[in-house]
């Protein structure tokens, strides 16, 4: 059982480049999330989805886009990378009934230079 899988693990982007962070889960969870963690800070919610075809903004959505075409996949798109997007990105998933217990992937460390 792989759980939540994120790719890539590391990436360096130049300012203005774009990329997609991939996230897939094999637990048949309805809910999926993208968080970012800046150095010394907590995790901040970027976007979340309560099911295929449904997405909504979190606390820090600017500069990002998401889609949820299947239950398993929840990719995060950066269109015009900026240095402020240098961070560690975590994807997570959960059942609606599990009292907010989230399962996290191992993260993607992104640097924008």
């Amino acid at each position: 059982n792989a759980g939540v899988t994120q790719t890539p693990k590391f990436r360096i982007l130049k300012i203005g480049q774009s990329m997609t962070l991939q996230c897939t889960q094999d637990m048949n969870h309805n809910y999926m999330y993208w968080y970012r963690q800046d150095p010394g800070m907590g995790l901040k919610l970027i976007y979340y989805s309560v099911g295929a075809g449904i997405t909504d903004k979190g606390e820090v959505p600017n500069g990002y886009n998401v889609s949820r075409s299947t239950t398993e996949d929840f990719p995060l798109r950066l269109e015009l990378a900026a240095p402020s997007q240098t961070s560690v990105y975590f994807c997570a998933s959960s059942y609606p009934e599990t009292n907010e217990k989230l399962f996290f992937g191992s993260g993607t460390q992104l640097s924008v230079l």
Partner: protein
Amino acid sequence: DQQVKQNSPSLSVQEGRISILNCDYTNSMFDYFLWYKKYPAEGPTFLISISSIKDKNEDGRFTVFLNKSAKHLSLHIVPSQPGDSAVYFCAASEGPKAAGNKLTFGGGTRVLVKP
């Protein structure tokens, strides 16, 4: 505006002693509280949780205490072990009333347990 705050960025404790981690929140709508543990280069993993209708929840060496009137919760680890060295995040949710089971996280406390 941080709704969940962990005011101690780090904590050092001797093996076998108690570790006490603190967390304060400001949003009175928070209904459910969780602690996550994170090792380097890994994602956070769920540790223990507590509903707002309780004031204590215990799971082995880990106990979480909730003081709703003070909007404060704490995590006690007894006895502390070297494998407990990690970053601990406090998190809160508005419960099933809020769409998406969204969590708000504190900034984390780095715990170092010395052998």
